[in-house]
């Protein structure tokens, strides 16, 4: 057993950290306040290979694997939840679906420019009546010669209004439902009948955009069907499995940052003639945060290692769900405790704890609520002892 990061991953972490601190940290407060997507950062990130971290170099990626991608998400989320979310939706799920199930032609045409950061991706699953119950989607795709006509709408799509390429899930055979009746498609924003609707105002991750998408007889070439026809549900679930690890990695980074900020504050804040770090109440908060963060770190990188070494069965899927649940909950606790330690200062917009607290909350909801993740975990566990739950 060897828990050390490879030399290349160590250098990668240093590079990503310097990039995040020099290029992203200075704009984090402003993009949150102005609800502005930091295109200038995304462009620079793309030129350094940060928009295609896990993908092989032959597809324009960095070839750094899931471990390298988790390092990126960890370091990025330390300084800016919004930027990390944009990269996560682009790389971790939008482009990931094409990488996992795309044909060689689709990868050359779509994945290469996405991995290089020349184009932005989004992942469109959620609908007004289908979020956690993903099988209940209503967006329809009907064959029309060499095309499919898509009709329906998607909601709360991260990067929805800035994406050039969108992985979209649609029903191709309502009779078959999720098992055989749902297909994934690659949609370009220029396709006729594709429209971007309302852009949401949010509690946190406000520098990332979240939008509604409409498909009105949207003409998608038949060759843009992604993965096996009718097996789109599997493509999307498989993609989300992978996305959940890096989401957890982002949570790890932000939680680590919350701990560091809390320690710095507890060291320099004097009350009753001593730093508040001398109080047992503060020490226990710090210790509990640190314990959870270390446990999370082990979980994240073990699961990323499983992915990189090709161990992507049911066990992996269970671990990925755990990364998402535990990561988001460790982060939300850490952000809450960090705010408490900072006291009044933590509540003020002037200091980054307030933003971190708001940014943290979504992680327990998006990419599959924690409640649904717990169901997945329990179902997989019971299945091992012969009980199949639905």
């Amino acid at each position, binding site marked *: 057993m060897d828990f050390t990061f*490879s*030399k*290349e991953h160590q*250098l*990668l972490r*240093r*590079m*990503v950290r*310097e*990039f995040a601190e020099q290029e992203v940290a200075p704009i984090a407060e402003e993009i949150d306040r102005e609800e502005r997507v930091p295109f200038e950062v995304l462009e620079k990130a793309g*030129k*350094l*290979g*940060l928009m295609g*971290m896990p993908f092989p*170099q032959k597809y324009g*990626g*960095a*070839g*750094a694997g899931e471990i*390298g991608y988790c390092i990126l998400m960890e370091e990025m989320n330390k300084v800016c939840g919004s930027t990390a979310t944009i990269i996560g939706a682009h790389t971790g799920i939008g482009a990931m679906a094409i990488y996992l199930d795309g044909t060689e032609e689709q990868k050359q045409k779509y994945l290469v420019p996405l991995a290089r950061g020349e184009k932005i991706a989004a992942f469109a699953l959620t609908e007004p009546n289908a979020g956690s119950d993903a099988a209940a989607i209503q967006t329809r795709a009907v064959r029309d010669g060499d095309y499919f006509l898509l009709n329906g709408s998607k909601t709360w799509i991260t990067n929805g209004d800035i994406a050039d390429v969108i992985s979209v899930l649609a029903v191709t055979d309502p009779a078959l439902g999720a098992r055989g009746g749902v297909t994934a498609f690659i949609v370009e924003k220029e396709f006729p009948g594709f429209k971007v609707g309302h852009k949401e105002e949010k509690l946190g991750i406000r520098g990332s955009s979240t939008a509604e998408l409409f498909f009105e007889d949207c003409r998608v070439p038949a060759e843009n069907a992604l993965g096996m026809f009718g097996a789109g549900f599997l493509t999307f679930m498989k993609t989300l499995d992978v996305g959940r690890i890096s989401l957890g990695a982002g949570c790890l980074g932000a939680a680590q940052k919350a701990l560091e900020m809390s320690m710095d504050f507890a060291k320099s804040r004097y009350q009753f003639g001593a730093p508040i770090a001398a109080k047992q109440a503060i020490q226990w908060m710090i210790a509990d945060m640190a314990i959870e963060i270390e446990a999370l770190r082990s979980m994240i990188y073990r699961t990323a290692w499983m992915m990189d070494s090709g161990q992507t069965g049911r066990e992996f899927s269970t671990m990925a769900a755990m990364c998402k649940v535990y990561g988001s909950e460790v982060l939300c606790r850490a952000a809450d405790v960090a705010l408490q330690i900072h006291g009044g200062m933590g509540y003020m917009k002037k200091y980054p704890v307030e933003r971190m607290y708001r940014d943290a909350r979504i992680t327990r909801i998006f990419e599959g609520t924690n409640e649904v993740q717990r169901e997945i975990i329990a179902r997989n566990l019971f299945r091992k002892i012969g009980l199949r739950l639905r």
Partner: protein
Amino acid sequence: MKIVVMIKQVPDTTEVKLDQRTGTLIREGVPSIINPEDKNALEEALTLKESTGAEVIVISMGPPQAEDALREALAMGADKAILLTDRAFAGADTWATATTVGIALKTIGDFDLVLAGRQAIDGDTAQVGPQVAEYLQIPQITYVREFVLDDGKVRARRAVEDGFEEIEAELPALLTIIKEANTPRFPHAAAIMTAYREQEVTFWGAEDIGADPETVGLKGSPTQVKRSFSPPPKEPGQIIQSAPGEAAKDLVGILRNKNII
């Protein structure tokens, strides 16, 4: 065109701590980096590579782990990397270091330009660059902020205390670069992977460059460190808190007592 960049691996801190007992640097737990101004030198070389197609070779002397500094240089865009590492090189002062690097540069041969950082953040001597130039008997321009190559010559603007000097020299020449010259690039993520997984670092020992063991390492060093120590901390100052008129009198009194005035 062939450009050689001399780089040094240093601890990533400007506050190097000393072991009070042994007087040596405490390196444990301190990550190692490419000396910052050596990175500026490398950036100059890589910019020239982009405009002229020059070949960029990075060279370093140090323990085997200095390989990481060279891998980072490869990730930034250097074409070849050479590490001078041998027990015989250990304990070298700046003279013996310059001798070793000088011999290695002759082994590389037909270079047009040698670049180095102004000085390293650990030793702060700024000696090795100029000494290598002396060893090779080539022109040297130190503290370079910017330079151009033109028809077998280099024209450089060097920073001096109250302005700049413009100096022209025949190639091959050695230049030491200051941090104001540029902002070193980030390596591309893919290049980091390739630097470790596919590219090679050449290791040269004393025999590979035909160095006489008497002229390198501790044996070839005319200077030796007798003792390293941190200067004793400054004693806290005295604040005179009386009213301005009184304070002036008090101050004069104190200075008189100390025989300063």
